[in-house]
């Protein structure tokens, strides 16, 4: 490692907040939820990390991770096939007492030996439900300059309704905080306050040695949650600082926000805000370009490669390999990979998972406040 003083390794928690979108994670996890016509949520974090020279990345998978393994494969698409570092996937270690991870602490405790062996000075930890094109180098720089023990990225926004509604205390946690001169003085768990809050993105920078210490201590005491059990009680001892992020943030908090955040990208201002930074890598499928056949109509749509469009599509996001047959009408829909809308079908406000087929002539409509979700491989 040429510059090990500023080097960092990445740790990703791909199952965080799975409970927010139970339908979408039925056969997958948060990290592998399709987003923005050709990506999976984890692509944004992975690409952001590799662009910042973080090329030793561990993904601590907990359950339902087959789709993620398939997506990540060797990590080549993110340039993570490395002799030193590269991509590591850590499932829970299988022994008699093996249980899925309950919180960050239990997950990290599982890889303490690995962490001890690594060379990087810092650790960057993230979830995957926050979609950003993020500059981790700048956050690490801020962490070093401020002399913080732990730096947490946050943005300022109102708390999403979906999050407040769906997260009860036994399902998981989100965090807001009070700050003084950049130092976090108070952490609130599952706050219900209205108005703009300092809302944690759960991106952390911390020195590797310190993290090992903190996790070790907490784990021995049977504690599970990094924020609630490790940071919160130590706010007076540890210098925990906030790193304010002003860039484009899309948070997946429930089905509605998943729908809305996809649709928001139809506005070019948002699309540019998310994608004009460094390139977001994803798995390559080698689809042909999308074909618009005579008679096709498309207005205000984002469409990936491999689609064949003969019908009428409007205000929608189409993933790779979608087919819309003649006379079909698609409005305000998210159609995931390889879904098919047969001739004359008429659909509105649907979220169609992979390989769904709407048969000829069928009509199906959700509403803006309640988009209807159709599970993988269903035939309607």
């Amino acid at each position, binding site marked *: 490692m040429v510059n090990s003083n500023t080097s960092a390794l990445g740790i990703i928690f791909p199952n965080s907040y799975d409970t927010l979108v139970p339908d979408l994670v039925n056969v997958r996890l948060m990290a592998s939820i399709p987003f*923005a*016509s*050709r990506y999976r949520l984890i692509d944004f974090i992975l690409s952001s990390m590799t662009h910042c020279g973080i090329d030793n990345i561990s993904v601590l998978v907990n359950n339902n991770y087959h789709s993620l393994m398939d997506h990540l494969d060797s990590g*080549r698409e993110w340039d993570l096939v490395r002799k030193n570092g590269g991509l590591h996937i850590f499932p829970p270690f299988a022994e008699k007492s093996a249980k899925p991870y309950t919180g960050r602490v239990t997950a990290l405790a599982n890889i303490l030996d690995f962490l001890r062996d690594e060379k990087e000075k810092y650790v960057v930890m993230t979830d995957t439900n926050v979609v950003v094109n993020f500059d981790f180098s700048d956050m690490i720089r801020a962490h070093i300059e401020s002399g913080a023990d732990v730096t947490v990225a946050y943005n300022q926004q109102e708390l999403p309704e979906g999050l407040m509604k769906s997260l009860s205390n036994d399902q998981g946690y989100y965090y807001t905080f009070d700050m003084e001169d950049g130092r976090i003085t108070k952490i609130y768990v599952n706050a219900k306050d209205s108005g703009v809050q300092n809302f944690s993105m759960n991106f952390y920078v911390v020195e590797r040695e310190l993290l090992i210490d903190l996790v070790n201590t907490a784990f021995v005491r049977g504690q599970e949650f990094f924020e609630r059990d490790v940071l919160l009680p130590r706010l007076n001892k540890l210098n925990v600082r906030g790193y304010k992020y002003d860039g484009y943030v899309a948070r997946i908090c429930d089905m509605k926000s998943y729908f809305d955040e996809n649709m928001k990208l*139809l506005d*070019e201002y948002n*699309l540019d805000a998310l*994608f004009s930074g460094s*390139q*977001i*890598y*994803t798995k*390559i499928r*080698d689809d*042909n*370009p*999308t*074909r*618009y*056949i*005579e008679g*096709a109509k*498309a*207005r*205000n*749509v*984002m*469409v*990936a*490669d491999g689609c*064949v469009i003969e019908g009428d599509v409007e205000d929608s*996001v*189409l*993933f790779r390999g979608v087919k819309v047959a003649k006379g079909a009408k698609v409005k305000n829909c998210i159609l995931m990979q390889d879904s098919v809308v047969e001739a004359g079908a008429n659909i509105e406000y649907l979220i169609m998972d992979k390989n769904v087929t709407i048969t000829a002539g069928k009509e199906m409509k959700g509403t803006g406040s309640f988009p209807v979700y159709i599970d993988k491989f269903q035939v309607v």
Partner: protein
Amino acid sequence: MAKEMIAMLLAGGQGSRLYALTEKLAKPAVPFGGKYRIIDFPLSNCVNSEIDTVGILTQYQPLVLNEYIGNGQPWDLDRLYGGVHVLPPYQKASGSDWYKGTANAIYQNISFIERYDPQYVIILSGDQICKQNYSDFLKFHKEKNAEFSVAVMEVPWEEASRFGLMVADEDDRITEFQEKPKDPKSNLASMGIYIFNWDILKKYLEEDEADPESDNDFGKNIIPNLLKDNRRMYAHHFSGYWKDVGTISSLWEANMEILDPEHSGINLFDEDWKIYSRNSGMTGHKISDGAVVENSMITDGCRIKGTVKHSILFAGVKVEKGAVLEDAVVMGGTVIKAGAVVKHCIVAENVTIGENAVVGAMPAGEENGVATVGAGVVIGNNAKVGPNAMVKNNVEGGEEVW
């Protein structure tokens, strides 16, 4: 371990008849079909036919091509033993030579071929759009117990004299070879794709090299010599889509034919015979409210606000409001500004076409030229590029080029 068959891909062609498009890159690197380059076709054919060792012979402007091929990973040709290798001419102890002809290019790489100790070598050409199963071709070669086989296409008799023709008996054995003859005795055109038994190929390459009079060319020298010696030579009939995209009009035509896979024969939407390429990695394309897209192919990164009819757009093309495209092939990264009219033409990569500029025109009567704009050119506002124009340099605002 020996390989049964390896491929040698001739990619050194300058493609001078593509003019402005091949100023800075070799013909096989010319973009095609929205997200491909010409060389993706033979490379994908190889990997789909389970040929895992390909030597690519480059010579003219190899930079783009070399970078594009890289380690061959997009075609699954990054292999421990074999894989794709770019083979430019190189200096030897006894001097150096450019590749003098197609046969000489292979001759200079005999040592490359011998590393794999193949039984058969297939010679491919890097300037054709074609989906062909080379393992079927090899099966034919073995069944006929041939020493040399060539892939042939039946062409209309009236066009036969434009091609190199194979005259064959009812068993497909070749009895005569005619190079662009006035009186064709056959309508079986050579596609320039050959399978040789390696021992035979090596022998004839060495003999050809020793002949100072030779042009060191497969068509002119090697094939006639094989015939003279009464070798077992067979013609393998191919009936799928095949197009030599050596000229501007044939390149344009081949692109347009993709828009009509039901009739033209080239089907890129074939899950069983994918064409692989190096991907742009851009986001999905965006079609705005008010845009019109009809009968076109659009790929990642495009932003369409204007009207696009019967056209092929490559990655990252921007069509601003009020711009109109028809019968156009527009390569990656090009920006077409508001009100510009772009028709019946090929626009290369990273071109800017200014506001209200006019490029090309739909055919009218005898006039059916395909206007061509070279890579990186800037066409000024209100400029006009005529249907026969070949633009390599920037065109000032208001200027006209014919």
